């Protein structure tokens, strides 16, 4: 475990890996039928959302039981600024993540006053308040019939080209997140997450550092939510609801806590199961549940841990055969 984490600590970005992944996804988007392209877009958006949540879970020592708020508010920021305030679409797209970051700042400032389970419960309370307001203030938010028609679904692009836009945005955001995690700020966030008392002794106040992590996470979740709002061309209270929160948490757990790739691996597996298995098996969530239990029991480091083990095994064999 420690060895895996040390390897993840490498500062440099493996550009070859990024380039290969980018090209593979871009080609897949263009060769796939629309439905597969939709699934890939969904995976990309949720990979960003889960990665943003993972910043809190794996690095900052916080748990958010209401992270869909920042995802959904991105989509609502986009919709409300365009539909209600008459802003142009580009301004709405910029506004979405900023609205999420603003709420991340307000709710985060409250939540960091507490620690552990108490802070987690407060994130849940903030989420419940937000959901209730969004659901009930229907003159402004559209209530349960949401807001639609403010932006053409996928900006009127073909699934393949919209997929490329999403791929570019998500790649940039995840690279930015990588830099944050490995920059001095990220190291401080980790220090606070691992041992707040020792970090405080070094002059890093827990609240301020965790708040910074919270706002970054909220902003990136907002980017994902804004993309999702554009993808479907609408927004509904469900986007800020508890099910989207659970989706994010499950993805990170599946992907493997304490690993940078948790959100990415988790989103791929979860959405793959969601898209494929749901067709054949009505109770596919049961399968997810069983897989989650197995992961927690057999490989607490999740898919990331499994991948690392396999890579280690292969490398060991290669090295073994060389000697």
């Amino acid at each position, binding site marked *: 475990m420690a060895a895996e984490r040390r390897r993840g600590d490498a500062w440099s970005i493996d550009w070859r890996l990024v380039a290969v992944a980018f090209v593979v996804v871009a080609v897949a988007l263009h060769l796939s039928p629309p439905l597969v392209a939709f699934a890939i877009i969904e995976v990309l958006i949720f990979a960003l959302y889960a990665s943003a949540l993972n910043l809190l879970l794996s690095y900052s020592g916080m748990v958010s039981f209401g992270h869909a708020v920042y995802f959904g508010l991105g989509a609502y920021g986009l919709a409300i600024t365009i539909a*209600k305030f008459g802003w142009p679409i580009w301004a709405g797209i910029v506004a979405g993540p900023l609205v999420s970051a603003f709420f991340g700042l307000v709710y985060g400032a409250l939540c960091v006053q507490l620690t552990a389970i108490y802070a987690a419960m407060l994130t849940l309370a903030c989420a419940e308040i937000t959901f209730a307001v969004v659901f009930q203030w229907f003159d402004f938010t559209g*209530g*349960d*019939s949401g807001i*639609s028609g*403010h932006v053409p679904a996928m900006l009127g692009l073909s699934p393949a080209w919209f997929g490329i836009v999403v791929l570019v945005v998500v790649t940039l955001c995840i690279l930015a997140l990588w830099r944050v995690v490995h920059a001095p700020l990220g190291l401080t966030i980790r220090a606070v997450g691992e041992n707040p008392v020792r970090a405080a002794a070094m002059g890093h106040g827990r609240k301020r550092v965790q708040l910074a992590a919270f706002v970054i996470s909220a902003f990136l979740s907002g980017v994902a939510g804004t993309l999702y709002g554009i993808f479907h061309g609408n927004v509904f209270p*469900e986007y800020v609801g508890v099910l989207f929160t659970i989706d994010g948490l499950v993805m990170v757990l599946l992907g493997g806590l304490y690993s940078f790739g948790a959100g990415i691996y988790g989103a791929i597996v979860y959405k793959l199961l969601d898209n494929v298995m749901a067709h054949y098996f009505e109770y596919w969530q049961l399968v997810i549940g069983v897989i989650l239990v197995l992961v927690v029991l057999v490989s607490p480091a999740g898919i990331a841990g499994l991948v690392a083990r396999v890579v280690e095994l292969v490398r060991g064999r290669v090295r073994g055969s060389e000697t």
Partner: protein
Amino acid sequence: MKKAIRNGAVFAATALLLGSAHAAGVKIGYVGGISGACGGLTHSARKAMEIAQEEINSAGGVLGGPIEIIWRDSKTKPDEGAKQTRDLILSEEVDLLTGVCSSSVFMAINPIAKQYEVPLFSAISGTHKATIDFGHPFVVQTQPHTLMEGKALAEYVARKGWNNIVTMGLDYEWGRTTVKVFTEELAKLNPDAKIARQLWPRIGETNLTSYITAALADKPDLIMAVMFGSGTNSLIKQGKAYGLLQRTELLTFLSTESYMSLGKDVPDGVHGWARGPFYALTTDAAKAFVAKYRAAHDGEYPNDWGILGYDVMYIIAGALEKAGSTDPAALREALGGMTFDTLRGEMGMRTIDNTFNAPSFIGVTKMSDEYPFPVMTDVNVIPGDVTLPDEATVNALREAAAKG
């Protein structure tokens, strides 16, 4: 090798062509909340639609072939509903769509039907926004929507001559909109009526005693409760302790599954409205359907959504036969001038908002000797022609929606 590749390509192309060639008959995509919040409602719709499908197919089908239905679960989630709809259109190449439960799923599916120009027949969701505010040529509503129900309630209350009224609406869109329309329409129908108080319980709130005491304090002739499911259950149960039904009249949403689940807990004398109560349908066709449904499902009775589901299948089949093809424009053209003998009576669609003049049913509960649950007696059937909003209202709503 080259030859092998060429043969393979020809084979693949032939297979594709054969696969995409449209067989006779019709392919209908059903998107509904088979699981999730709508699960309890839609199971009956599905059973009823399967009966209609079997009847239509055994009578020769439509357009020279059988009706095929592909069932998809929206999980009562808008994004899932949208995904399933796209899949039905792009992968399954369905000719038209139906089902739809919950406003959010309807609103999520609606623009997709518009984009791909696939007719969408909503049978279960009651929001008016999809056909009016964001209406388009390919979306059809076959049941009374929120605006129609609000007006039907005003009609009923005006008939009864109740003047002092307390409204109790669940604090979200459905509750607020229904109360608003009810209040506006009642003022036109009975200028003497006054709304003494408006109360807005939160959705999911189980303790309603403070609302009950506040409502009774005004000594109303009527409490008009725009509530459903557990809200209605709590109101009736907790109201007993305050003698609510002895002190005032109560009017609330009571579709058949509410009676079935509450059973004897529904006291006599509650005024309820419904969308398709099987026991109030008197035609031979309705009786035959109920008998068939019960025989196929261990004596179970269909709920309102079953009636609506059965009707929509015959509306679709009838319109397709007249149109002579699945072409959306031809279908709409055909629908415009048609009337249908549905289980709920004769109905037709008007073209300004593709909405059927579906009736609303309002009556008074009474424990029944015939059924193991109470039913409504003295059922007033408020025809859709009375409750459909006028063209000016439709246009005003559309303009407001366009402005945002």
